């Protein structure tokens, strides 16, 4: 550890211009971060559409009639807790502790799946009450925005399974560790988008 600290302190003294190309970890992280920002731009467009259309209910139910805040609060807690367990999982990957990785990532998966189940339940309930996406511009925008977020969570769950299989078969190679790091970024970014969703869609309805 002291040797590592020494190397780090040494590298800090070299000016940026003389350090050579950045490490693959930094470059891969930057590339994935650019992808995440472009993904957030998609959500920005959907948020803009929702804000513009949220009043266009075509005589149907409005946001205040439809949404249940307790339900949303539980969804929010699930996603927040899964963000933290995912962070703990990423830390375990760095320390190459396979058992801890499986434990924390299984917990993350269960919390993510609970969130998704609650959201699908809400969608089914809305459709059953005749408030499906085809009813009004407001509901189309709502289902597109929240549905796109749900789709991202679904893809995240699939990616999580793939990463666990890679840890089991390939072990903690630098390549796998990098992918795990990118997965962590993806999962945390979804949580940031959800903060916007529950504020604008669910709490903004009054």
């Amino acid at each position: 550890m002291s040797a590592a600290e020494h190397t780090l302190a040494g590298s800090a003294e070299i000016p940026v211009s003389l350090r050579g190309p950045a490490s693959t970890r930094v470059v891969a992280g930057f590339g994935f971060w650019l992808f995440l920002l472009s993904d957030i731009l998609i959500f920005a467009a959907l948020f803009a559409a929702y804000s513009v259309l949220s009043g266009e209910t075509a005589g149907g139910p409005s946001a205040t009639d439809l949404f249940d805040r307790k339900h949303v609060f539980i969804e929010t807690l699930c996603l927040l807790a899964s963000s933290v367990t995912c962070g703990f999982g990423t830390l375990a990957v760095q320390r190459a502790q396979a058992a801890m990785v499986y434990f924390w990532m299984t917990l993350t998966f269960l919390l993510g799946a609970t969130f998704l189940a609650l959201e699908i339940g809400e969608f089914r309930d809305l459709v059953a009450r005749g408030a499906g996406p085809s009813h009004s511009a407001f509901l189309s925008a709502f289902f597109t925005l929240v549905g796109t977020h749900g789709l991202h969570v679904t893809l995240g769950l699939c990616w999580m399974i793939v990463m666990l299989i890679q840890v089991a078969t390939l072990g903690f190679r630098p390549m796998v560790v990098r992918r795990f790091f990118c997965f962590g970024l993806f999962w945390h970014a979804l949580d940031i988008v959800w903060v916007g969703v529950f504020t604008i869609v669910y709490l903004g309805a009054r």
Partner: protein
Amino acid sequence: MEPQLQQSAQGDTPGVSAQTHGTHRTYLIGLGYALVLTLTSFWAASTDLVFPPGVPVLLGVLAIAQMGVHLVFFLNISSAPDQTNNFLALAFGIFAVALIVFGSMIIMANLNHNMMMPVE
């Protein structure tokens, strides 16, 4: 197996892990802040104590604060030297998001205003 494990990239200091991951403590502090902000948001949306026209502003401030907490404590975005590019990309991303969201809202509100039937 051994050559694969040695596959560290140019510029990587062997045996030194990334400093951009945070610690258990970082995540727990972030969780604490995020929980407080979430609870405040849900409380503010359903209380009568806050002046009603001020509630959307309060919710906006709380949401932006929580996004900041997530960025700093979960995504570990900082102004550290090896993160300059990430930080600049984030700044541009925020600019583009603001342009799309507020631009659309202003344009559509203006259109709505102009399309209204004149009251006779």
